[in-house]
């Protein structure tokens, strides 16, 4: 396992370089969508190949530790950026998602954490893979919504709301599935759907925050500034739910801690 982790840096550099070149092409030649999209697609293939190799060497899904979920987040951040670029032709979004993805890759290089083959009994469930991948995918989609909200806040550009809406609807749909699959899994493993464990509480906060955004939009309430701030706040809650909660004193006895 250690050997496989040692080669991560090569896959990471290749993926980041490919994605970055794609982002630069998107900036400099806005009319050529195919070239940046192909480069970013190749970057995802390279990064995805490492995940497959790691999965195969561990003989278990690499989804247990926060470090392993960062791998998925980096991968899905690339995918979400690519989707947003192809769908709305924002030439800047690839650069932002490249930065977002690279930040988590760098953290994984500096703090690789544990990548052993152990998988405790509570995680040996059919819900493990769908629950984690769906959550990571939604986190990445909502990461793109966060980037667009930042841009909307700075540029005071009303048109960003349409893109944010689409991303939040997709993100919330996957977030809902992640939360509900987690509830069913919790019932199967521990006997109750919901116990207000700190991780669950922050999942509820994140879900309610995005739900509030959708209702503000449906009811035609809130200014551009307020809506962008709400999306940024929701993303902060999402980060808290993902890894920030581990640093809270109230979470020290959480049942959701698996090798920080």
């Amino acid at each position, binding site marked *: 396992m250690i050997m496989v982790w040692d080669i991560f840096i090569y896959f990471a550099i290749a993926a980041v370089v490919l994605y970055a070149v794609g982002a630069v092409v998107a900036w400099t030649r806005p009319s050529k969508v195919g070239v940046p999209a192909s480069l970013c697609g190749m970057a995802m293939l390279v990064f995805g190949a490492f995940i497959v190799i790691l999965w195969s060497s561990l003989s278990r899904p690499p989804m247990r530790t926060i470090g392993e979920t960062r791998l998925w987040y980096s991968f899905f951040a690339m995918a979400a950026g690519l989707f947003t670029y192809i769908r709305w032709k924002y030439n800047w979004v690839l650069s932002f998602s490249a930065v977002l993805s690279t930040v988590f890759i760098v953290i994984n290089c500096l703090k690789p954490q544990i990548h052993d083959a152990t998988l405790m009994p509570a995680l*040996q469930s059919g819900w493990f893979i769908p629950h984690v991948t769906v959550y990571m995918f939604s986190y990445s989609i909502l990461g793109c919504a966060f980037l667009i909200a930042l841009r909307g806040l700075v540029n005071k550009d009303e048109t960003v709301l349409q893109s944010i809406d689409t991303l939040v609807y997709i993100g919330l749909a996957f977030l809902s599935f992640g939360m509900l699959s987690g509830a069913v899994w919790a019932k199967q493993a521990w006997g*109750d*759907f919901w116990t207000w464990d700190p991780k669950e509480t*922050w999942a509820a906060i994140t879900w309610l925050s995005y739900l509030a955004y959708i209702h503000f939009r449906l009811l035609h309430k809130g200014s551009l500034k307020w809506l962008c701030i709400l999306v940024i706040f929701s993303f902060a809650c999402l980060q808290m739910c993902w890894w920030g909660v581990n640093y809270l004193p109230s979470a020290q006895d959480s049942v959701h801690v698996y090798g920080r």
Partner: protein
Amino acid sequence: MELFAFPVNLILALVWGGIILWLWKDYRRSVFVRWFLSPLATLSSILLFGSGCLVAGFAGVECTRSWWFTSELFFMMTVLAFVLLRGLRDAGGKLRYRFILNHFGLLTVLVSLFFGSPDKDVLRLSLTPGMTSDIAYREDGSMDKLRYEVCLEDFRTDYYENGVPSVYEATISMDGKTVSLKVNSPYAARFAEQIYLVSASGPQAQGGCVLQVVRQPWKWLTVIGIILMVTGAVLLFVQGPQTLSGHREE
């Protein structure tokens, strides 16, 4: 909580639902009902409950048992019920099913957890191989006699090289049957009563384990709500951001 156990919780749920239906039917144009159907009520219910969760997120699980947290949840359920009734009458077009699935699903989940929680009972029993027992204990130390005897036939544990457990597996016999229990694989002993393998217990030489009996009669309602919400989430993804048509002012 025992005060609100069955049948009190069921009566309260029916009274609450009955009052909402009665208000909806006969006082739809009253200031009270119109306020519950207003955007202000919708947004404030989400934001209030979200704020309550935020406090609980920092302060800990104890907050979720407080009167103010319960009130916020109850307020959200009530707003949700009124909005659902209006949606059932008004919501048209292709978003009708998405609206109903998401709102009815969430309401079902919340009602089942809110009114059903007093009926939930969690008991534990610690057994060693060959031991038979029908006595289990709650977290507060109180005892309960099960309607069946459980005998631990065998308990197997395996560990990874670094000492992390890889397998917990118990073989129990009850009701004349032999049952295998694993973490994530409980056994349904009765209607809405499941037996879980929780962990190993005592010195490893004794080879014992802890079993947990969970009674949760309202769980099927929660499962129905979850299925409705998952279906609603699929439609949320497929249909994307579109505005519901057909709402009319009361």
